[in-house]
């Protein structure tokens, strides 16, 4: 298995958000985690990525057998665990090309590989840009600075395509996207699907799953996964909402 989350308890500013979450993701699988607002969806991806301010009070996270909670933030990314943000941060003055190159070389160096030669890097980046229907001038722009919501999300996917993570976690990647942008983003995510790779989609709405078909759908309510199923579960949630599961969880 690739990612194993066991009985995870997480506290944020004194209140428990995740209350014993268990999840297993295998290579080749696409998982969707759905749930109402405040259920802990974003907390899960933030904890896996190593964001400050989340206290793990119990349980474990392992990635390819390694204890994720013992790894530095950058080590997680170098190991192939990559998070696409719901609200990508603007980084004034740092050009996209710098970020991509530095990130790719960090990953390669961590794996004991040589840094990528400049021409090969440019070829790779141009190819991925083209695939995401982004203008090359974008490389010289500062990371996310002045980008529209759709451009920011495309940029997250572009980074994924260049860095080729083993596990791509995407937090509400569909929020703020119009249908055309959603299609481009979904195309990018679908191109990451492979036998060796896994994808974890965190989403409130089912509509993203019209474009990216999940193998497993989990429903997260009040800090726990209360139900798992196949793609039909997402459709059921679409028509019935979350209330029937919330009540079930409370009972």
């Amino acid at each position, binding site marked *: 298995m690739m990612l194993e989350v066991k009985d995870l308890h997480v506290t944020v500013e004194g209140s428990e958000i995740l209350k014993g979450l268990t999840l297993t993701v295998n290579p080749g699988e696409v998982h969707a985690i759905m749930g109402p607002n405040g259920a802990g969806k974003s907390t899960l991806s933030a904890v896996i990525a190593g964001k400050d301010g989340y206290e793990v009070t119990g349980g474990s996270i392992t990635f390819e057998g390694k204890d994720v909670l013992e790894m530095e933030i950058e080590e997680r990314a170098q190991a192939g665990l990559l998070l696409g*943000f719901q609200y990508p*941060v603007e980084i004034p003055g740092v050009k996209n090309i710098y970020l991509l190159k530095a990130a790719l070389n960090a990953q390669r160096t961590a794996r004991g590989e040589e840094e990528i030669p400049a021409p090969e890097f440019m070829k790779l980046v141009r190819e991925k840009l083209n695939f995401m229907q982004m203008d090359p001038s974008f490389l010289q722009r500062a990371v996310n600075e002045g980008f529209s919501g759709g451009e920011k999300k495309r940029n997250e996917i572009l980074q994924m395509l260049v860095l080729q993570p083993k596990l791509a976690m995407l937090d509400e990647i569909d929020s703020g996207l119009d249908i055309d942008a959603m299609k481009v983003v979904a195309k990018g995510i679908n191109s990451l699907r492979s036998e060796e790779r896994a994808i974890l989609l965190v989403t409130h709405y089912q509509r993203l799953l019209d474009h990216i078909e999940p193998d497993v759908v989990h429903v997260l309510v009040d800090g726990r996964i209360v139900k798992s199923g196949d793609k039909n579960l997402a459709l059921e949630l679409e028509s019935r909402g979350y209330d029937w599961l919330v009540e079930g969880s409370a009972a």
Partner: protein
Amino acid sequence: MSEEQTFIDALNRRMAARDAAEPTWVAARRQAASARFEAVGFPTRRDEAWKYTDTRSIARGTFVQADNAEFSPAAAAALTLPLDAIRLTFVDGVFSAALSDLDALPAGATVETLSQALESNHEAVGAVLGRLAGVDFSPFAALNTAFAEEGAIIRLAPGTVVETPILLQFLSREGDQPTMCHPRVLIEAGARSEATVIEHYVGETDAKNFTNVITEVLLDRGAIVQHYKLQEAPVGDMHIASVHVDQGRDSRFTSFNLNLGGALVRNDIVADLNAEGAETQYFGLFFAQGRQHVDNHTLVNHNAPRTYSQESYKGILDDRARGVFNGKVIVKRDSQQIEAYQNNANLLLSDRAEIDTKPELEIYADDVKCSHGATTGQLDEEAIYALRTRGIDEQTARGLLTLAFAGEVMEQVKHDAIAQRVELAVAGKLPERFNLAGLVEAAVALGEEG
């Protein structure tokens, strides 16, 4: 014996040892400057202009004046800016013909050393030199005028455009005894002439010398002068400098004041916008670490209506470094419809680094557009996190963001060789833990390829 007397005695010994008489006006000015210096003495912290900058390390120093310009050509080549230039080199203030090259100088432009210019026509020099920088400007201006022996005189005839940058290179040497030099630079830009002048201060790692330089720039109607100062002197050097600018109608002056080196650094820049349509732009970047102290005082005098000034200074301070920014804009009573914008942003990389920043506007006209702002902050932790989630280690992330902060000024630098040099220097000078040199080189290579 007072600290001042030590310097005056040194001057007297120096003059007594001269084998040839100087033009009368030169000797008279030296005497007047020496008297002025004796009367005012070195500045103290009680002087408003020197409130944050302690110059006792200069006052208490014992400096000799160099009498030769020996410098290994290979070492000089390693230090020089990699660009095609009309080049004058001074070693501890002494002119080096061997390290100079005036081949690219076009007709209509002359570039001479001060001593050559005095020899060929001292009256022409005397008519202009010191017009903008009087001995009452500061004690160091008096000291410079008393001691000045060498420097560069650049004259552009009307309409002359010098495409190749004029590079004045000041090399600081290691030695048994610290040296001092008091160079003068004079740039006379005739009507509609155009040139780029670069002052580059650099030297051997362990040098501990004192440089006290004055630059005067006169722009006639429609002249365009870009003045770059790249100060990457050895970190033991003391560096006091002032740039004085007089602008005629529709002239354009741009100053890039880039400071990376020196133990104690003080820059004054003063521009007088004396006729309509004159424009001045000040760009500054200072990066200091260890116990470096960098003080930048700038002044723009809007003496005429419809003049324009813009200023952007960025400071990066690490360790226990200290920075000072004082930016003053004065708009005279009848200087209507002027525009003056000023900004200073500082980045503190350490809890013990300090910056004192003070923008000052004095406006005596009522129809003006002026703004100023100063900010000081740390690196954005959220941005660092975002970079780390892409696999970039924390030190590199901090380095990238630091370069990005400097980048906003560097983007304005039109000469790639200087821009790249500063980016590399900033990266190389960042504490070793940032380990950025390779990264920037790669990015520079990419820029060329892309």
